[in-house]
């Protein structure tokens, strides 16, 4: 069975349907990307998977457990972790406190310390500023901190919501390298992106949302070549 199985999920905000009958699966060890225009429901999908918005219908199963009605902290405890849109770094906390916040449900102090040191080894900018308020970081550094914080939660599936948004091209490269590296180390990834070209390159499977419905899904290479997707998101030759 898939690691994450979303079946016929529906979410509404008041009377407005945000997601309708969305199905999606992430196999262990895969990178799955969700593409779509602004307002297509991508962020809502991730929040619904995390349990931060109530679902109207359908189901969410993770690691063979039905989590459709579980609270967010239960889902995080099971290894479902979100790197939210806009990073949502806590600016009244230091860099190190932000990392520790990621591990707030864990009790294994020694392992937490070890993993934090590994993150500092990977991101030397964070190590240098560990005792400074997180508000002093640049946008790219904040994104690294947000990912580091998610790693501290020991994710089995990391969901990333528009991680490349607002980053310089250099940081976008670094970010996708990092996602691939974490994936090679065994982390499963559900990636929401506007940078369609890059996302399709790293993903093992892709799903396209339009107005809250799945309109295409499957092999990212095939999708990248699909004229409809070319027109809509890849600035393809077609044009209108």
């Amino acid at each position, binding site marked *: 069975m898939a690691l994450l199985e979303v079946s016929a999920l529906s979410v509404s905000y008041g009377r407005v349907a945000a997601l309708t009958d969305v199905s999606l699966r992430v196999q262990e060890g895969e990178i799955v990307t969700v593409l779509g225009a602004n307002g297509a429901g991508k962020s809502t999908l991730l929040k619904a998977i995390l349990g931060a918005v109530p679902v109207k219908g359908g189901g969410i199963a993770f690691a063979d457990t039905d989590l459709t009605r579980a*609270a967010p*902290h239960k889902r995080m405890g099971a290894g479902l972790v979100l790197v939210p849109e806009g990073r949502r770094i806590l600016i009244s906390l230091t860099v190190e406190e932000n990392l520790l*916040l*990621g591990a707030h*449900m864990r009790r294994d102090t020694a392992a937490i310390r070890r993993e934090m040191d590994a993150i500092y080894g990977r991101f030397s900018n964070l190590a240098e500023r560990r005792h400074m308020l997180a508000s002093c970081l640049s946008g790219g550094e904040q994104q690294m901190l947000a990912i580091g914080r998610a790693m501290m939660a020991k994710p089995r599936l990391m969901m990333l919501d528009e991680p490349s948004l607002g980053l310089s091209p250099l940081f976008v490269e670094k970010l996708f390298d990092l996602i691939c590296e974490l994936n090679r180390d065994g982390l499963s990834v559900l990636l929401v992106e506007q940078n369609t070209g890059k996302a399709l390159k790293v993903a093992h499977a892709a799903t396209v949302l339009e107005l809250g419905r799945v309109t295409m899904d499957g092999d990212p290479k095939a999708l990248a070549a699909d004229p409809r997707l070319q027109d809509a998101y890849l600035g393809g030759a077609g044009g209108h």
Partner: protein
Amino acid sequence: MVAQQIVNGLMLGAIYMLVAVAFTLAIGVLNFLNFSLPGLFMAGGMLAFGLMKAGWPFLLAAAGALAAAAFISLLVERFAYRPMQGGDPEVPLVSSLGFLVLLENLMLVQFGSDQQAFPALLPDLNLRLGGLVIGYAQLASLLLSLGLVAVLSFVLAKTAAGRRIRTVAESRETALLMGIDIARLVPQLFVASAALAALAGILFAVNYQQVSPFMGEGVGFKGVAAMIVGGMGSIWGAVLGGLLIGLAEVVSISFIGADVVNITVYGLLLLILIVRPQGLMGRAPSREKL
């Protein structure tokens, strides 16, 4: 003489300090000016008195009063705070004020409106230091108060629970996305601030050997003043503000007269608001407060 007044002022200030810390915890994390806290202060003193009158030993009566205050605070959370989420912040303020009136009148029905004498626990047991007289009960309550605040401050600064609380204080939405169980954390904060307020009420009863259904009002407003003087949302600011207000009160009573107490205390508040609106240890306002 002056030294003696300073000692007395610090003892009274310790009471204000606990109340101010209870207020600042509620406003700093929940953005809620919880006016049931003066009621819980009074309930702490009155219930300890009532239970002792019923024959309970002091420590048991104090524990019973604290437990009752914690339970009442959970009711405040359930009926005044939780239903108003997402609405105007003024609404829970007013309904918490309703709880204050309710508590005062329940106590009035039970114990009458008169001031009652709280039994002396350590009669005439004083520490004499040079010319100073310090009651052991007062000294113990000052140390207990400061110790509790230090523990609270440590928990907030250094533990996972403290980081969770500070995350909720900065952004509830982010806290939810970080998997913080807000539905459990909020009632815990209500219990913590209720315990601080009720403990202050018990210590007040022990130190000044009197209780009444309305003892919460004066102390409660001075606790709010202390919180503002120190800086809303700052624990050590509440400590500083509480001790300052206590000192100002006692010193002005002994050197000018009891009539001017409110003028000095609230004059100090006014002065601070003019000179340093964010309070002595408060940060400049970064987000909207009540």
